[in-house]
């Protein structure tokens, strides 16, 4: 597994598109802070020049977060998957391929995420109006968001390894992370069991997390972790099982 990871790392470090994506993400974070700070200084009545509003853009930007996760994961699972036949014919186990790609892209994503969050906090606290609990609230809300975002990472990885088309990947992501709560709420009108599921739907939890953050009442939410862990486990089990039997050519 170490040899396979070394080779994938060799490739990952030479992916210009991945480095560009990272730079664009960090630049967008800086640009958002600069724009808010500019309007705060030029218009005294501007209500959004606060660190809390700045942080809420990340917490409420589910679609943007999904796109970034997709781009990071695709760096090792994109169109180059036809070379997988070489690795398989060298006797490298499919599970090794699945996990190596997952761990490397996830590691890179987590590093950039930590840098991005640190940059956000640094810019938010120095350029924008702050209150005493904004950083703590932001980190707590991120802690609630993280398991659900990671489960999306695992879902994308499994679908990409199964050669599911990009359009279908996005449709599945939007249904699970964007509309599942809405759909379950409709279902709850006919069947009570859907009511419990609705409480644990990713978009329900992300919405609640965002509202709690804005109301400065955010707390650690175990439901986010329950949902995140269940979705992650499901994504990984499906991915590993399907990929182990998949035709590779």
């Amino acid at each position: 597994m170490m040899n396979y990871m070394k080779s994938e790392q060799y490739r990952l470090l030479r992916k210009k598109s991945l480095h560009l994506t990272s730079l664009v993400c960090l630049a967008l974070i800086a640009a958002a802070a600069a724009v808010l700070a500019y309007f705060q200084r030029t218009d005294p009545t501007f209500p959004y020049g606060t660190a809390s509003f700045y942080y809420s853009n990340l917490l409420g930007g589910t679609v943007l977060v999904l796109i970034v996760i997709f781009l990071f994961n695709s760096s090792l699972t994109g169109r180059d998957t036809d070379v997988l036949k070489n690795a398989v014919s060298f006797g490298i186990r499919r599970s090794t391929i699945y996990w190596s790609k997952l761990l490397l892209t996830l590691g890179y994503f987590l590093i950039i995420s930590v840098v991005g969050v640190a940059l956000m906090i640094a810019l938010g606290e120095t350029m924008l109006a702050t209150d005493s609990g904004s950083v703590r609230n932001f980190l707590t809300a991120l802690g609630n968001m993280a398991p659900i975002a990671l489960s999306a990472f695992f879902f994308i990885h499994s679908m990409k390894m199964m050669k599911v088309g990009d359009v279908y990947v996005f449709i599945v992501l939007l249904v699970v992370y964007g509309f599942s709560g809405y759909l379950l709420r409709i279902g709850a009108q006919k069947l009570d069991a859907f009511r419990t599921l609705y409480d644990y739907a990713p978009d329900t939890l992300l919405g609640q997390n965002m509202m709690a953050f804005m109301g400065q009442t955010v707390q650690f939410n175990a439901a986010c972790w329950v949902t995140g862990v269940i979705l992650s486990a499901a994504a990984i089990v499906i991915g590993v099982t399907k990929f182990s039997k998949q035709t590779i050519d």
Partner: protein
Amino acid sequence: METVIQTHQLMKTFKDVQVIEPLDFTLRQGEICALIGRNGAGKSTIFKMLSGQLIPTSGEIRLFGKTGNAAGEMRGRMGFLVETPAFFPNFTAVQNLEYYRLQRGIVEKKRVREVLGIVGLAHEKRKKFREYSMGMKQRLGIALCLLSHPDCLVLDEPINGLDVEGIREIRNLLVRLNEEQQITIFISSHILAELHMLATRFVFLKDGAIVEDVSKETLQTKSRKQLVVAMDDSATAARLLEQAYPDIDYRVLPDGVLAIHNHIDQSGDINRLLLTNGVSVTEFRVEARNLEEYFLGLVGGEPA
């Protein structure tokens, strides 16, 4: 002699269509075995099952005597080039092979340059894979197969897209690897004349089943040069020939046609002998079947 590849009742179906009939096949160390069949006969499917790209529907694959996960590990002793070579389009040849050198845990860094030299790509330092011609891609594919000093090469159409000189170079390389390093080679190609020059064993595949498995010697015997004589009285002709040439080697084909395998350089004398003794000859020709004609005779079809 070590058994390199062994299949037992290996079978593959795609959506209820059986593309590979239960297959029993053995490849021993040092052989150069040609797998010959039409498009769709199942050659690539067999190679893909051997390489692990396709999971067999049933049956067993043994590589160097090992099955299951252990057989998977034995693939590390083999080099596979199945269908078109696949590499990273934005990488150069060196970068692509460096990636696989790391993947296979090959310590010697110079090995990348060595194999590129062997296949004639050592001078292509800056060109990216996406800019390569088909022939160059094939050469790089062969270089990848050689990277880890394999004991066996499985090559599916390796000379596709190569020019005449390239084909000769690859043929000479494969022969050299086989003779000097006893590397076993399992190869397919539609250029049968090349296979004829290269292989020591020929396996003919039709509709997913092996229809013939012969050594080079047997194939030469079966497809050797012969004098074909059609006449009105084959019994008399045979008696006359046996009297004139006691060591004559002939077969009686359907319709009383004689196929004579020796004394072919004396065809004029044979013709005269038959005519002067009242045998009316209606057809008289020298023919030799090459591998292509032999193959078409087996699977049914007309020579091109």
